[in-house]
């Protein structure tokens, strides 16, 4: 007795319908989902998307064949009492077996050839003369960005020019992380002891999000960053601004805050160029993000929250409450001292 065939049919179709609706509505808005992997904005991610679409189509065909064949088999051959005719006992068929070996092989070749082409094409060992090199340094649990040729160091947010080859060098200060910028870069692991690369050419200016995607300890979930693709003009402006010395407030709470910074342990981990930050030998000023132009960043603390005075205050007061396990200690600052320090930091535009 074949149970529930109608149930099977209806459930299956209903489920597929619901899923389809939700997927399509979801994908229609995908662009506003900042980590979307299917909205490419660079040459690299466009090649990847092409491959993805090809495989999805081929996969869907195969799935359809399997589902239809099995579904038909189930519906047609379920036993019913009194059914006349004996079941077939055919258990081999050379042509069929060859077909379902060779056809999948051909499909796989159709996937493998462009795959290998893309692999080779997207991992060049040479870059054009005008390429920009950005050195990404991964720490537990924040991202540092250096521009060796420009002399710029920042954290949490990386700026790159559009329509120019950018070559990311990935190094880690501690454990294995993974640098994931779905819209423009795919991902590449950041492995201590070696230098990994991503080479890309982003062509749509905008703000793109990224996150660490290799489990790296307690706060792996909160190791995020922002990537800004600027027009070449905007990029040059940004670089020039980064090279300027930090704001030195003369009066007001910010000025008091500057004094607090200079006297508190902040300087041991955080660099503000010309104010704090010692030689790398002593590992001073490099354990935490560079704060020289902190005020103009949109996010903070591994890009887990917006850079607002309230958030900065909460963070300094008790970092562990916002990011349990973080390496920054609570400094015992509160009240007016805290707000002065916050004012100073936010003034570092």
């Amino acid at each position, binding site marked *: 007795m074949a149970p529930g065939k109608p149930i099977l049919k209806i459930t299956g179709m209903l489920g597929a319908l619901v899923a389809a609706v939700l997927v399509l509505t979801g994908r229609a808005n995908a662009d506003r989902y900042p980590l979307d992997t299917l909205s490419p904005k660079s040459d690299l991610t466009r090649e990847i998307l092409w491959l993805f679409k090809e495989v999805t189509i081929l996969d869907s065909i195969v799935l359809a064949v399997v589902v239809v064949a099995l579904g038909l088999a189930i519906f047609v051959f379920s036993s019913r009492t009194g059914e006349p005719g004996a079941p077939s006992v055919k258990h081999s068929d050379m042509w069929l077996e060859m077909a379902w070996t060779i056809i999948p092989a051909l499909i796989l070749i159709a996937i493998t050839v462009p795959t290998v082409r893309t692999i080779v094409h997207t991992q060049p060992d040479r870059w054009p003369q005008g390429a920009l090199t950005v050195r990404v340094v991964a720490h537990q649990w924040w991202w540092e960005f250096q521009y060796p040729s420009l002399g710029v160091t920042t954290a949490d947010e990386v700026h790159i020019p559009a329509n120019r080859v950018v070559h990311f060098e990935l190094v880690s200060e501690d454990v294995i992380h993974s640098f994931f910028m779905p819209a423009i870069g795919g991902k590449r692991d950041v492995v201590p002891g*070696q230098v990994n690369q991503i080479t890309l050419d982003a062509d749509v200016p905008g703000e793109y999000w990224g996150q660490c995607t290799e489990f790296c300890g307690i706060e792996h979930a909160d190791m995020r960053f922002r990537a800004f693709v600027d027009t070449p003009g905007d990029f040059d402006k940004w670089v020039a601004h980064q090279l300027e010395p930090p704001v030195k407030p003369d009066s007001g709470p910010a000025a008091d805050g500057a004094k607090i910074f200079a006297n508190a342990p902040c300087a041991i981990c955080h660099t503000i160029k010309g104010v704090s930050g010692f030689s790398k030998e002593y590992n001073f000023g490099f354990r935490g993000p560079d704060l020289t132009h902190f005020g103009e960043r949109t996010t903070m603390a591994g890009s887990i929250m917006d850079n607002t005075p309230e958030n900065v205050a909460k963070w300094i007061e008790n970092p562990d409450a916002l990011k349990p396990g973080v390496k920054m200690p609570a400094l015992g600052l509160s009240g007016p001292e805290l707000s002065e320090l916050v004012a100073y930091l936010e003034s570092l535009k």
Partner: protein
Amino acid sequence: MSDHAAQPAHAVGHHRAEEAHHPGPVTYIVIAIVLTILTAFEIGVFYAPFLQAILVPLLIILAICKFYLVAAYYMHLHFDSRVFTALFMFPLWLAMLIVASLMLLFLYLSHHLVT
């Protein structure tokens, strides 16, 4: 540990009597002498300056010879059922694949040291 009413039908033809084709002690001693000579060759190759260029392939060949002699004669593979040779060959190839792959993979990695 139990009795069978029926004798097993040896449908597969891997059946060589264990006691046939046994090398005698003389053969074993001869093999031991050959192994010693091969080892002496290896050490000679190691110290001979004019052979340094082909040190690696020569050593590998000599090692394979020793390996074969011990496996085929002392471990009796030459005389035993081919099942045992198959049982040894597959893991051996896998082992060589692992060593070769890892060496190649790390060769690439050595171009990626921290700068």
